[in-house]
């Protein structure tokens, strides 16, 4: 749980920086539709994740695994960290 909370906080920090304000989280929130990232932001967001978490997420993985949904993205990164430890 601590790890999930940490991942969530770090993602929120990245998103706050990109959006110039903290995103308004609701369960099931879509990073693009609900938080307001645009299509150009996607590559920057994935790059920021790569820098912060050491994991490269391909565009197609992002779409196919539904990682636009914030909670799924958190779970994906938590799982990656668990496997890497």
């Amino acid at each position, binding site marked *: 749980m601590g790890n999930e909370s940490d991942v969530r906080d770090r993602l929120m920090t990245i998103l706050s920086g990109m959006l*110039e304000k903290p995103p308004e989280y609701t369960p099931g929130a879509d990073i693009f539709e609900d938080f307001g990232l*645009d299509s*150009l932001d996607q*590559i*920057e967001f*994935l*790059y920021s994740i*790569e820098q912060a978490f050491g994991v490269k997420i*391909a*565009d*197609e993985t992002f779409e196919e695994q539904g990682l636009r949904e914030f909670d799924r993205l958190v779970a994906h990164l938590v799982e990656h960290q668990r496997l890497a430890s």
Partner: protein
Amino acid sequence: MRHEVQSDLPKLGHRDYIQGGSIFNDFLDISDQLFAPEWLDGAVITSFKLQRESFGNGRIIIADTGLEDVDANAAMIAKSPSRTVYAYYIDDGRPARREPYDEESFYQAVHVGTGVDGEFRFPRGRPRGDFVRAVVGANKRVHQKTDRFGAPLTHIQFLYLKGLDARCLRRSRDEYRVVIANVSVQDRGSEIWTINRVAVSSEGFSSEFRICYRGTKDTQ
């Protein structure tokens, strides 16, 4: 505060579109008129994005808060200790005059590597308007020359830059060394999206920012 002006952006040289560098420079020039040039002291261009290519003239809006009701072709956010500036360009389709351009001979001499990387020298004393044009042009060249993706890239487009220290835009007393290195690639099938790190240095000064491009693989 919301200040709106009609743009008078040129198409430079042989281009059939308006260069992002021209829009960027107009954003800065209009902000200078509104706030006095000192507004750039200590500023960082947080982001400059080209959402869509522009083929005509239109409106430039400068504001002190982000505008969510604007469907802009290009947008900039710049933060300085004194203020945050939001700038937007909306192409209305008004014809653009054509303006000769010397085709940036100063960065044609770019040293190009094979991995979306390269280096060039930005001469001392050139106006700030040439800096972003040179960086954008040199990055385009390294994308044209790379053999990293198994096929040449065509339709190479500048998409955005992030984190540009405004000191890079001051008319420099020294020559800048500008080094371009790729830090991320997203392969989207027929398209490649890249993020490059641009390192700028001169005597007693160094800074880095990121720039993003899209290119289409030419598989024919």
